[in-house]
């Protein structure tokens, strides 16, 4: 898998997103502080935003090419997108959320069946529930399952663990690793957590104010840190 971004430009509120990079890891982290343009970059790859110039290619096929006025609509890209906090459809049941993008006529590689996805994400018991009764972690697993069942060629995850507390993040991380190992769908993983980059990703792009400032393997760009931590006595 490779996502090629050639001289892609997109004006944002305070700066311009300006990226020229080839992302070809199994799981590529897009790392940076909030407001660095990470989400905009995902939306651009998903086709939800159009750059003012440049070219976006997935495995050699142009998705967006400003020069030739090519713009493949988001629904034809087979690029899955899990936005922050999942964005489940509140008016649909959990089952109908999961099946929203599921097309039984389409060929599904690598065991991407409803049952298998439900088993990997351990969401079988949630299927009968209403969306409003799910916890934050459950919602994220459903959103992930919903994206997987639409058989994407590429999966975009926007800080899937950001809204959750630390113990819950620890519990959800293995699910993401299982999705990575089980289905072989390449992922772009937006995060501002170095721990998640090291735990999950094999490639990382560092984004600051709309520009790539570093690109490499997590081991090259991150080192173990001991931050001063306090805890309650007794």
């Amino acid at each position, binding site marked *: 898998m490779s996502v090629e971004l050639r001289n892609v430009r997109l004006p944002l509120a305070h700066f311009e997103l300006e990226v020229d990079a080839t992302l070809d890891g199994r799981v590529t982290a897009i790392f940076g502080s909030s407001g660095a343009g990470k989400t905009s970059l995902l*939306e651009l790859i998903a086709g*939800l935003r159009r750059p003012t110039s440049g070219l976006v290619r997935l495995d050699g096929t142009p998705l967006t090419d400003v020069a030739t006025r090519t713009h493949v609509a*988001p629904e034809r890209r087979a*690029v899955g997108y899990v936005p922050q906090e999942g964005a489940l*459809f509140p*008016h649909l049941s959990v089952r109908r959320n999961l099946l*929203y993008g599921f097309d039984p006529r389409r060929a599904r590689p690598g065991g991407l069946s409803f049952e298998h996805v439900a088993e990997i994400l351990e969401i079988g018991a949630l299927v009968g529930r209403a969306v409003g009764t799910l916890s934050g972690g459950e919602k994220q697993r459903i959103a992930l399952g919903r994206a997987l069942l639409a058989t994407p060629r590429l999966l975009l995850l926007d800080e899937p663990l950001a809204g959750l507390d630390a113990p819950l993040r620890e519990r959800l991380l293995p699910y993401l690793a299982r999705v990575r190992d089980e289905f072989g769908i390449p992922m772009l993983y937006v995060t501002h957590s170095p721990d998640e980059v090291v735990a999950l990703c094999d490639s990382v792009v560092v984004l600051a104010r709309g520009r790539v400032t570093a690109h490499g393997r997590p081991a090259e760009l991150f080192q173990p840190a001991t931050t001063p931590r306090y805890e309650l006595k007794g």
Partner: protein
Amino acid sequence: MSAEAWQITWFTVGVAALSTLAILPFGVALAWLLARRDWPGKSLVETVVALPLVIPPVATGLLLLKLLGRRGLLGGWLERTFGWEIVFTWRGVVVATAVMSFPLLVRTARVAFEGVSPRLENVARTLGAGPWRVFATVTLPLAARGLVAGAVLAFARALGEFGATIMVAGFIPGQTATLALSIYHLVQLGRDTEALTLLGVSVVIAFGAVWLSEWFLRRRPA
């Protein structure tokens, strides 16, 4: 209640329902365009649509009268093409109430569409749904409460319309006499008892419409 009162009641409800149904597709489409798209002339259209709310209904009625009369720009064409007479007919009542209630529908529906998170629509697109499927399965159901509220507001406005209707359709018993026009007419003639009966009918219909919409909204929790 007299046969005449029944006739006036059914005529009024029928006209209000017809005018609400007639403006519903256009009002919802325009509201969506205002909420979700930027286009040249948008603020001009916004202002024109809001005009019936701010200028006196009688003035709006006069404008429609000039436009829809036999020698009017639109009226002449409608009569030649379809053989439709608008002014001083039941059609005139429908047009007047439709124009007067249109801004209420558009405003309420626009707020409803603006309340639907674009993130949900975006996710639906990435799940393979084209723009129409997104509208039908995400936008419309999530805006439904507001759309129903807008339709009820438009219907209520149409029930009570007076100023524009009297200009465009006049007061012709059995043909253009609505509840509001009849109440005014009866009071002018000193037939207060009959006027009070029609007042009672108006209250019952209004109560029913509001109750029905509340029931509908309760049925679909947000």
